[in-house]
């Protein structure tokens, strides 16, 4: 079931366009920065600062940082939102369910494939940033300034060897994917509810923006740690670029994401098992 679903989704031209856009934007950011301001420090999250032309590894982090606000959640919502609603919009969902396979297995395979594609989307961003960055600025050790701990007495600079930097970029990709779990699960739920893929994708993106907007409201600070995605939560991945690496906030992040995933995917599971499939 999973391989059938994967082959079906990988044959869709629109999915390759999504991957192409993600890789293309990462590459274009490298080109713009390389041509106009390679020596200007760029921010990574709230506290990190890197100089792009000092090492190609900076571009992987800059690409993740600049696409995390919109393009990455959009790509994740597209893969999750298209999963069931895409089938419904083609009118083939009823034939899919007519196969002698339980609805549970159908949904599971769709969610697994959408999850793999979402992970692939985030990897595309960091790999494209990495490749274009290494081509533009070279295989050099990566230096990151921790602005939170930089003072006149301590420079706050951490330097990673090229291989170490590669490992940190990998870790960052995993953490970024983790912060997308709530967006992904909500888009899956919307995809089960509606027959229109566009509505499901919009639902996923809307969740991430409503959450960030609520986080911006002074007076609602108490809500912050419990929202599905916030500016602070979405920049926690930058912690892997600092030494000593402070991972103390990760268990909470993981717990919140898992709780949202359980709620949204559980609701999707219940709805899909009982739904009258008319399309």
């Amino acid at each position: 079931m999973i391989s059938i679903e994967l082959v079906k989704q990988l044959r869709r031209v629109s999915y390759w366009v999504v991957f192409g856009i993600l890789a293309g934007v990462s590459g274009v950011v490298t080109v713009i920065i390389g041509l106009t301001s390679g020596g200007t420090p760029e921010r990574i999250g709230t506290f990190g600062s890197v100089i792009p032309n000092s090492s190609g590894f900076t571009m992987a982090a800059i690409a993740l940082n600049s696409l995390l606000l919109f393009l990455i959640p959009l790509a994740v919502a597209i893969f999750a939102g298209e999963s069931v609603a895409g089938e419904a919009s083609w009118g083939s969902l009823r034939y899919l369910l007519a196969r002698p396979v339980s609805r549970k297995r159908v949904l599971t395979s769709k969610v697994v494939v959408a999850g793999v594609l979402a992970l692939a989307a985030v990897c595309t961003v960091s790999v494209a940033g990495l490749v274009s960055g290494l081509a533009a600025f070279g295989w050099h050790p990566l230096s990151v300034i921790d602005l939170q701990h930089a003072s006149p007495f301590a420079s706050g600079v951490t330097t990673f060897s090229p291989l170490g930097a590669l490992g940190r970029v990998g870790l960052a990709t995993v953490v970024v994917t983790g912060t997308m779990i709530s967006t992904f699960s909500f888009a899956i739920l919307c995809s089960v509810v509606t027959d229109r893929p566009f509505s499901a994708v919009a639902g996923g993106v809307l969740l991430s923006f409503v959450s960030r907007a609520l986080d911006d409201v002074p007076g609602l600070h108490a809500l912050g740690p419990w929202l599905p995605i916030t500016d602070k939560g979405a920049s926690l991945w930058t912690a892997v670029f600092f030494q000593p690496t402070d991972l103390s906030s990760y268990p909470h992040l993981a717990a919140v994401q898992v709780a949202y995933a359980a709620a949204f995917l559980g609701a999707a599971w219940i709805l899909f098992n009982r739904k009258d499939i008319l399309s």
Partner: protein
Amino acid sequence: MIAVEWYKQFRRPKTYAALSIVAAFSVILTVALAATGSGQTEFVGDVPLLMTPRASGFSVPIIALSSTMKFFLPLAVSLFAGESVAGDASWGSLRYVVARPVSRGRVLWSKAAVAAVLSAIAVLTLAGSAVVVGGVAFGWHPLGVVDGSTSTPGHPQVDVIHVGAMLGHLGLSVLYVGAGMLSIFAVAFFLSTTTRRPLVAVAGGVAVTIVSRVFNADYLPGIQVVNGYMPNNDIDLWQHLFTRPADLSGAPHFLLLQAVYFVVFMGLAHWWFTRKDVLD
């Protein structure tokens, strides 16, 4: 024509729902501020402005405008603009609307006028309800605003704004934020003429603010080149009205940009709608 369109939009529950949510936002914000510590200093915007909500109810409209100008207000404006033409198309009644012995241009502009008035009402509702609710909760007193960009720990730059001046400042702020919605309105309205699905047009309007936020030199200094042409990056400049001296040097550029976006996209909407095959 305008009256007909106005009557139609005003009978829709959706219109009232959107406006009530906007008003409810002020109430929730005030309750949240009162419940979680109105005596604490709040940092508002990128200036930042420092103020204590309990000191005066006028802090509530400032906080409400700051926290809605980048997402919730654009969403409300896109809703009104995006629903206007595509809403009729989705009901299947657009062909009957244009079958009336009235030019398409007049149909389009009466829809635009009504959507624009509703959008303006949304912005005014937000600020008005925030002034009222904030005043009821914390009183209409002069508000001391600390300019976080020029203050040092020993020398806070406090600007005490009296009630009359405050109302004037707030009025200007509402006008500025309202003007900042022009680009969003025009894009959502243009998309509304091209699609039969209102959600697409609404999403397009919201996308304007999001794209603008992605290409913002405040967060990604390397793309300084495009920053000046993004429609919504400088929508927070009105916060400088509450500092002294008020640095508003970026405002004319921002307003000009809004006007350009508005003219271009409304022109496109007119061009498209007067030529399109109306099938819905």
